[in-house]
């Protein structure tokens, strides 16, 4: 399908059009930062953003989610599966890194003998309208992990901000179908397409961090047992776990039961390998008792274990962990140290 | 809403009675409550008693947990200052409760949900009066909604 042009003034019209068919999630400014939220009016949307603080994984993998409820009856226990019939939804303004994170999570939640039905169900009916990154942040390093600010992977449609308008490019059948439903949207001309290409080049040039992460895969394994290496980073870590909670690819969770008078529910919640409790045995033994080991686990999981089992780096280079860390632990510094070791 | 649920709801609205959890010190207030009973002093039947060895044994967790579990109010009653069986348990408790009460009231739980009193083993009448006052106070506040889980 030919590229289209959407004037920024037409954006509300598009959003209202989308809202007729979909639940629309888009970046909304809230409490000084951006977050993807289901919107009830086009006014709430603010596409003039770098990226959201909370990763959009939350849409498919909520921070607390009911796996099932149970009722106590005279005959014992009755289990009730939650109704997860997710209405058709569209995420507007997703960045390339985050779309990539969805592909990683898709792969992970379907990896092995079991599928995760909760994640898959929420993910299934979702259309992604991406927004190319004209202005990557200084903390972005997507190009080092196989991504790019103009990455289209995982999206159905990608928008490129051309100032007063967006270049609209459909990337697959789903995208085509959607655009066909919007008759008033006009075709783009050569000039618009050229402009978008120039922006791509500019954005790529803007990302200065060229970290040889792909090549470091084995080096990570080599430094595995070097306590002093990991200590130089873990010594400043306060183990708060913000890096994992705000990571678009961190997917570990805890499962707890919550009892009420007539029954209860089983809930899963985000968890993090940065907490000592994460690995603590009932006997009191802890296989990863030190911060050094826990930090190593997070780094190794993303850059060594993930590639081993899923053939992908478990990081999309969004830089959220760098921005979130209150003690300024910077994953890029870890890479550089690995490289030098 | 089923018929039964609706019925429960209307009943709740019309004939709601507060449920109050009382932690009574074994050495004084519990005996005080006993005395009130033996002396056939009337007090509202809204309290459920948990006997504790000392008011100092009452962890503030218990109180918030009780409110979260749907108790409309709590009462902790111990020995008068100076009379603690363990010398100072009630004095430790007094500081704890003061701060807990200040915090939750600051956060917007109206005063009256958390109640504390000193009742000795000889004060059966005082016990019945304390209960009456606490029940009246909580009746005015209505059923607890904040802090309880949906």
């Amino acid at each position: 399908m030919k590229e289209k042009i959407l004037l920024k003034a037409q954006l509300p019209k598009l959003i209202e059009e989308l809202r007729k068919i979909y639940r629309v999630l888009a970046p909304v400014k809230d409490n000084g930062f951006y977050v993807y939220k289901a919107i009830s009016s086009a006014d709430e949307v603010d596409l003039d953003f770098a990226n959201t603080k909370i990763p959009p994984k939350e849409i498919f993998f909520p921070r607390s989610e009911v796996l099932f409820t149970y009722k106590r009856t005279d005959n014992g226990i009755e289990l009730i599966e939650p109704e997860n019939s997710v209405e058709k939804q569209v995420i507007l303004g997703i960045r390339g890194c985050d779309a990539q994170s969805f592909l990683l999570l898709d792969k992970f939640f379907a990896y092995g003998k079991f599928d995760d039905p909760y994640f898959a169900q929420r993910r299934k009916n979702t259309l992604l309208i991406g927004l190319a990154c004209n202005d990557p942040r200084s903390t972005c390093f997507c190009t080092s992990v196989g991504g790019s600010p103009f990455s289209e992977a995982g999206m159905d449609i990608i928008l490129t901000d051309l100032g007063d308008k967006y270049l609209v490019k459909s990337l697959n059948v789903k995208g085509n179908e959607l655009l066909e439903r919007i008759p008033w949207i006009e075709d783009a001309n050569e000039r618009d397409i050229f402009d978008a290409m120039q922006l791509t080049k500019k954005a790529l040039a803007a990302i200065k961090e060229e970290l040889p992460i792909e090549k470091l895969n084995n080096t990570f394994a080599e430094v595995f047992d070097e306590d002093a290496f990991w200590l130089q980073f873990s010594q400043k870590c306060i183990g708060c776990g913000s890096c994992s909670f705000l990571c678009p690819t961190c997917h570990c969770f805890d499962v707890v039961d919550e009892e009420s008078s007539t029954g209860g529910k089983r809930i899963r919640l985000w968890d993090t390998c940065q907490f000592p409790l994460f690995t603590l045995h009932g006997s009191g033994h802890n296989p990863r008792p030190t911060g050094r080991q826990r930090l190593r686990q997070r780094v190794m999981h993303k850059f060594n274990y993930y590639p081993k089992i899923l053939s992908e780096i478990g990081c999309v280079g969004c830089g959220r962990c760098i921005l979130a860390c209150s003690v300024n632990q910077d994953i890029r510094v870890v890479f550089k140290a690995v490289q030098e070791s | 809403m089923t018929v039964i649920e609706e019925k429960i709801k209307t009943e709740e609205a019309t004939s709601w009675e507060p449920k109050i959890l009382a932690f009574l010190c074994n050495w004084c207030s519990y005996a005080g409550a006993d005395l009130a009973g033996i002396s056939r002093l009337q007090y509202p039947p809204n309290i459920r008693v948990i006997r504790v060895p000392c008011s100092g044994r009452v962890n503030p967790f218990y109180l918030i947990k009780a409110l979260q579990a749907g108790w409309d109010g709590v009462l902790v009653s111990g020995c008068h200052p100076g009379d603690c069986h363990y010398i100072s348990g009630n004095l430790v408790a007094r500081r704890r409760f003061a701060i807990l009460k200040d915090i939750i009231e600051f956060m917007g739980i109206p005063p009256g949900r958390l109640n504390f009193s000193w009742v000795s083993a000889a004060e059966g009448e005082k016990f019945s009066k304390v209960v009456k006052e606490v029940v009246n106070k909580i009746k005015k506040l209505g059923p607890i909604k904040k802090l309880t889980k949906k």
Partner: protein
Amino acid sequence: MENLETSMRDIVKNLLNEQKVDLVIGYQKGTMPLRTTPCFVTKAEDSNKLVWNFCCDLNLIKYLLKDENKGKKVGLIVKGCDARALAVCISESQIEREKVIIIGMPCLGMLDRKKIEAEVAPKEILEARVTQDQIITKGKDFEHTLLKKDYIQPSCQACHYNNPPICNILVGNQPLELESAVDWDAKLAEFEAKPPEERWAYFTELLSGCIKCYACRNACPLCYCKECFVDQTQPQWVGKTTDIADVMFYHIVRALHVAGRCVGCGACTRACPMNIDLRLLSKKLEKIVKERYNFEAGLKTDEPPPMGTHTANDPQEFITEPE
């Protein structure tokens, strides 16, 4: 400030040269503007890595409590609030006074990085310079000049301890008392005067963003329990969900646990990934213990915290006394 930095480096260099300490924990340049990161110096020649500026907001006491530093003789760079947190830890026997050489820094308040960043968002600050009374931020296609006094952390604005109340070495001369730009007493009084419903609504709104990651707990220099109440399972006190009732429960009990100990350093607020500002609550805690027990946390190392002691005549106006 540069003078302070030079003197601080010299002091650290001497301490390490004279082998009075095994390790000095201070601040070094961060990887982004307006940031510093902890610096662990063990060799005298590395002391030049240390910096002192308006972004040294971290509370380094947390590092003294870490296993890897137990038993070591540590030199620690502290501000007034840090020194107070340290005093609490010492009075609670978590840190041995003799094991720390406290290098006190006079402090005029640290910058509120989150506020500055929010000011220019969604643009990104790539360079920042702090002068006497201005913050000059630069980014792609923009330059912003902000008045420094408007961007000092709220907790610093009401701080009365510009010099560390306890320390071994005070670097430089005493600064002037910082003029309180925020009148916390008035702020609290105003809030307290609101009806309970409004206060509840405020906290519900404030905490609705809480994702229960417990970063506030983990960043707090006074949260050193080996097993935190939120992690206990038998019984499980706190529900683990992000239901507002569970969130409130957590924050009420956390407040209770730091009452009379909290020094208002703001570490919890800085660590919060959701930008939840807990300082109204911590200021209230300070006020409660001050009014009830005339106590201020972290001024002495040999005084028990107010929740660990009692007097016969503590106020008890809240005790039910029927007519």
